[in-house]
């Protein structure tokens, strides 16, 4: 099983016990607020807040750091050159000059904002994902009037991604058992093409069979679910604290611009 398709951990925690609807609404609100921030002190505060939520959620450390590392791989090519590429405003003094390279205040500010906001957003998303089974979060989204078709699509994708990965693993094993090794050759590129095609055809056929099985059980396109969501005072308090903090951060951010 690869990193991306591993099961979500869902450890027991105060956040795990919250009603998924309130948690989803509050954390989505917090994510939108983080997206709106443009100053470093507010982004640092958002990062701190996300960190507190991650602690409350008792995210498994290794699981969390692995995902932060994956984000770092994506961020580094963008964040690292920024301080050297963005110029100072007219009349401004550069932070540092080494040979032909100029480290600007503007660029450093933009890079720190990019990293801080990305880490805060990822942390909030991981808190959301790891504090309830995915199907509960999706049912909560349905309860919040996200269209059933989207929910069904996400649930089916989540269910069959594991089957798909299993099929890919079996194909890779079959290739290795017949002496195949990845090399830079026409034969290897053709083989990868054939494997991709086989997976696409098999996925299409499975999709057809799943659709037939759904129709056999009376599915007509409407998503139904049984949910036991109940609002308790702690759900409301959590949502109020998160949303109020997020709004306060946005207000502080606007006042600093």
């Amino acid at each position: 099983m690869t990193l991306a398709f591993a099961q979500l951990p869902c450890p027991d925690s105060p956040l795990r016990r919250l009603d998924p609807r309130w948690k989803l609404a509050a954390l989505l609100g917090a994510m939108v607020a983080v997206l709106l921030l443009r100053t470093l002190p507010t982004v640092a505060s958002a990062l701190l807040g996300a960190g507190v939520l991650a602690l409350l959620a008792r995210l498994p450390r290794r699981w969390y750091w692995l995902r932060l590392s994956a984000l770092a791989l994506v961020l580094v090519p963008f964040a690292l050159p920024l301080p050297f590429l963005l110029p100072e405003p007219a009349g401004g003094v550069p932070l540092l000059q080494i040979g032909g390279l100029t480290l600007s205040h503007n660029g450093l500010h933009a890079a720190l904002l990019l990293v801080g906001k990305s880490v805060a957003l990822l942390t909030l998303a991981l808190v959301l994902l790891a504090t309830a089974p995915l199907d509960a979060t999706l049912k909560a989204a349905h309860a919040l009037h996200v269209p059933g078709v989207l929910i069904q699509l996400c649930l089916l994708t989540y269910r069959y991604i594991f089957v798909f990965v299993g099929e890919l693993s079996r194909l890779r094993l079959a290739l290795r058992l017949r002496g195949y090794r990845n090399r830079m050759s026409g034969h290897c590129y053709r083989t990868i093409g054939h494997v991709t095609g086989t997976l696409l055809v098999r996925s299409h056929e499975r999709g057809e069979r799943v659709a037939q099985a759904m129709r056999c059980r009376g599915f007509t396109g409407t998503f139904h679910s049984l949910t036991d969501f109940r609002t308790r005072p702690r759900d409301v308090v959590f949502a109020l604290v998160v949303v109020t903090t997020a709004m306060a951060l946005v207000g502080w951010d606007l006042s600093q611009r």
Partner: protein
Amino acid sequence: MPPEPAIVVQNLGYAYPQGRMALQEVSFTLQEGESVGLVGPNGAGKTSLFLCLAGVLPRKTGQIRVANLDPADPVQRRQLPAHIGVVFQDSDDQLFNATVFDDVAFGPLNLGLPADEVRQRVVEALERVALRGFEERVPFHLSGGEKRRVALAGILAMRPHILLLDEPSTHLDPRGRRELIQLIQSLAVTRLIAAHDLELILETCQRCLLLDGGRLLADGPVHTVLADAALMEKHGLEVPYSLR
């Protein structure tokens, strides 16, 4: 007045989208409570026949009545899932929800039943297949035998009185197969079972249909059809060991 047959098929024809005929002039009747085996080589048209009976594939020619409903009629087709259940050959095709509970509840929810009754049916169906306590399990993590039983529970929760089982013993170990046979025998429903496992057919059915090349070539008592060595060999099958 004699009771209505559970399934009546007359001169059924079905063609694949590419135009090749999958079923031709297939005719048979299943009485209420009968248990009938459907045998034939790969590509004989067994699965296509099941899907035509369930109203999923549109017939090209002929007539079908299932529980006195016509699968070709859109209004009557919508009522079919309450009467006929299909257990697919690959359980992964049938277990498409994130948890066992959601999967078993899928059919009853589509029938528009109230939440309490859906929960009760899920509990009863899982008890029937000896899987109580599996409600929150993820289908992907179940063994082949458990998946097959969850798939069956998903159908039993809809309380159909006609059951179509497509290769039910595939991927099962001997114990799982034995438990499945006992479970099938305990179900008081009309059954049509497609299988290459001819011993299973012998144990669970009184009558047998032989399908090859989309045509129905034999219909008779299971011991007569399966013991006909020439017929079986001609159609890529073998007489089961217990009849040799």
